[in-house]
């Protein structure tokens, strides 16, 4: 007879969360009595079968989806609103790869916090007891005047992707050329004679299109390649992402793959890593062949519809592939590659300028792919009036992106950040920050980009913000960070709120803000000097667009320069903190406080 099963250990084991000590406990329990191994196996069998059943259910849903928009578009009579297609896809795919603001589509639970700010503001207007109105949403006419208009082009349900990269592109129809940073509605077409275009889907999937090609963005989870070559990298949250070709379709199962379509409409599917499902289809989108599983380093060709696809040799050179950045040796030695780096922007390495006038305007600040950071969440600004400038000798002679304090800002594509984080920013305030009459603080980084969340309760993840105090403790050029945690008893609540003394204009600094929910502590360091520590008690993890250079939705613009910005999805250990700080210090020639005192304090903080 088996001893009472330690279900806590079973759960931690199957979730990969078992501590070394608990491993020993579990092993000891399994061997303690003859029936225990069977009891453990029974429990694990139930989990395995649960996985089987759920996966079977998911695949059934994926496979029974309706044809994507592009296929429907081939038939003039078959018009279908883009949002309906996306909704249908989301309803089936969401189970494994839900995109957070679409959640209300498939649950009976209260709608999430994805309501637009305008609605949020109306709902919150009754609350007179306002501490810091900028966080929860504008509540009166004056406040609403300070609210930014929508992100260019708005963010309706039909936004499916963004054009995040162009390299030597010649468009088939110059009149149909699309600028970098532009958002792509469902049905958008990218037809190139030559060059490479990068499309980042809202689901997180990235497609690299190599000209000549003709590609349609169907929705956040679908693309259609009519002709040419596309390579796709799909993160976990884009599980089930699908590429349709004239005579085949490919369903991602967490992978990197390429699809090539020749002049005759024949398709090749090449899998670089992971696996995909593939099958033949006809031009009406009807599925014909059996699903086949294609795994890494394998390729198949769909030619004659009457025959099964044939196995062919893989040829990765056919496709444009995502490249990890060539990071300088000094950076490789200093920036940890295994600490969940999520975003890395450096003004000297990854700024893309607008091609049209005025020159020196930044249209994209590319995420440097290095180490754990394998998906590029670039910061974009397609609106020329809101593009920041590139100042080539801004911070001690190094380049920086310059924000004018009135209109310029950048917005990343949706970026997943977690409860534990470390943010580094090299920046300096400009003279505009010291102009008389300022009453509101500006922000350098805000995690509540469009579509803005209404953080209505302190149980939801808060909004991390780096900048000056917004209102109550405002003093120009005081710099720090906080987690806006929502509203409690009619009042806005922020925590881990820490600021340094006013820095003044033209003073370059290295800010490090470390939020460690796991150990309930947060810290602010300026130039390696520990400014403050505060308890970290509320969740911060969220997938959202990050706004750089202003508040999430208010007109609180930063006047100054940003040379570099790194976000790690982990609370870095003291050694790593010090290493990154030293690297930035040398690069930007910024003097640090004596490291011993700061490091000791942070080490103690981490251990506690």
């Amino acid at each position, binding site marked *: 007879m088996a001893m009472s099963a330690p279900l806590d250990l079973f759960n931690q084991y199957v979730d990969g969360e078992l501590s070394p000590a608990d491993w020993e406990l579990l092993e000891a329990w399994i*061997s303690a009595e003859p029936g225990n191994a069977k009891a453990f196996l029974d429990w694990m069998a139930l989990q395995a079968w649960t*996985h089987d059943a759920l996966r079977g259910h998911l695949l059934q849903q994926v496979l029974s989806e309706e044809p994507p928009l592009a296929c429907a578009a081939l038939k003039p009579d078959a018009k279908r609103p883009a949002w309906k297609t996306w909704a249908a896809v989301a309803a089936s795919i969401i189970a494994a790869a839900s995109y*957070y603001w679409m959640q209300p589509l498939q649950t009976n639970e209260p709608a999430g916090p994805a309501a637009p700010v305008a609605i949020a503001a109306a709902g919150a207007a009754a609350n007179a007891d306002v501490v810091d109105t900028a966080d929860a949403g504008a509540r009166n006419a004056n406040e609403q005047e300070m609210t930014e208009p929508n992100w260019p082009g708005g963010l309706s349900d039909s936004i499916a992707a963004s054009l995040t990269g162009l390299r030597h592109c010649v468009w088939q129809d110059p009149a149909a050329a699309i600028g970098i940073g532009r958002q792509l509605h469902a049905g958008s077409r990218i037809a190139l004679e030559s060059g490479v275009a990068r499309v980042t889907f809202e689901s997180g999937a990235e497609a690299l299109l190599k000209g000549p090609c003709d590609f349609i963005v169907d929705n956040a989870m679908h693309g259609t390649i009519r002709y040419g070559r596309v390579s796709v990298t799909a993160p976990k949250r884009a599980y089930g992402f699908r590429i349709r070709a004239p005579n085949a379709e490919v369903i991602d199962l967490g992978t990197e793959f390429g699809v090539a379509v020749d002049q005759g409409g024949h398709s090749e599917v090449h899998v670089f890593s992971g696996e995909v499902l593939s099958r033949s289809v006809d031009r009406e989108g009807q599925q014909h062949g059996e699903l086949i599983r294609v795994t890494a380093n394998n390729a198949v060709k769909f030619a004659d519809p009457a025959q099964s696809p044939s196995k062919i040799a893989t040829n990765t050179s056919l496709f444009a592939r995502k490249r990890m950045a060539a990071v300088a040796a000094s950076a490789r030695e200093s920036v940890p590659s295994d600490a969940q780096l999520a975003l890395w922007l450096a003004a000297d390495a990854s700024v893309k300028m607008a091609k049209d006038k005025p020159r020196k305007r930044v249209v994209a600040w590319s995420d440097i792919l290095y180490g754990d950071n394998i998906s590029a969440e670039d910061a974009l600004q397609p609106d020329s009036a809101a593009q920041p400038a590139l100042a080539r000798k801004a911070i001690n002679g190094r380049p920086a992106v310059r924000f004018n304090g009135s209109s310029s800002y950048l917005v990343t594509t949706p970026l997943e950040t977690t409860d534990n984080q470390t943010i580094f920013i090299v920046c300096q305030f400009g003279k505009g920050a010291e102009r008389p009459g300022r009453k509101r603080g500006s922000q350098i980084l805000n995690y509540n980009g469009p579509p803005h969340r209404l953080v209505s309760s302190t149980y939801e993840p808060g909004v991390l913000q780096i900048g000056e105090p917004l209102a109550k403790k405002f003093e120009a050029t005081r710099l720090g960070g906080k987690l806006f945690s929502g509203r409690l008893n009619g009042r806005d609540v922020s925590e881990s709120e820490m600021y340094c003394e006013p820095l003044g204009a033209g003073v370059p600094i290295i800010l490090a803000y470390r939020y460690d929910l796991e150990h309930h502590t947060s810290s602010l360091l300026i130039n390696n000097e520990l400014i403050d520590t505060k308890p970290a008690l509320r969740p911060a993890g969220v997938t959202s667009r990050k706004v750089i250079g202003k508040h999430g939705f208010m007109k609180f613009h930063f006047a100054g320069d940003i040379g570099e910005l790194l976000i790690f999805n982990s609370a870095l250990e003291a050694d790593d903190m010090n290493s990154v700080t030293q690297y930035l210090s040398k690069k930007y020639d910024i003097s640090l406080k004596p490291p011993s005192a700061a490091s000791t304090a942070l080490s103690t903080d981490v251990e506690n």
Partner: protein
Amino acid sequence: MKFESRLSHDDGDADDDRTELAALWEQARPAVFAYLTATVYDFHRAEDLLQEVAVAIAGKFHTFDHERSFLAWAIGIARNRVLLYFREQARDRRHFSDATFQLLAEAAQQYPPEEGSPKREALRHCLDKTTGRRRRVLDLRYTGGLSIAEIAARLDMTNSAVKIMLHRVRAAIEQCVERRIAQEGRWR
């Protein structure tokens, strides 16, 4: 010799072999998958290993001694694959000792062939009744392969809330399956 007798098979015998193998594998597969999941604690990796075991079994079936238990033979192959996996591909991944692997293999070998089907049928019924956020957490963990932290970030929950929810929903499903099987037993 087995090999010689294999050479003497005509096409009809080969078809019989395939049919027999398919039937035996169908019965053994749930136990083999349970064993793999219990030892590598990663559903996707367990699935990959299951494929490898299936391929190995198909390739070696002509060496299978029909006097032995097919399940025991299959579990033996699975155990070797697991050991190879941890030795070559997942050196840094923590795993049970060889002795525990052996205990689990012995337990898996005792699985009655019919163990799977009523439980799986009951499980499907119980999963259909699991809806809303509980179902979403299950889907993200089991089919999406997301970690606790990733689920928490995706669903705007804390890590501990996700752990508690998974713990509870697993317990609820287990109880539901047991109730369902008991009810079906009464109806028969």
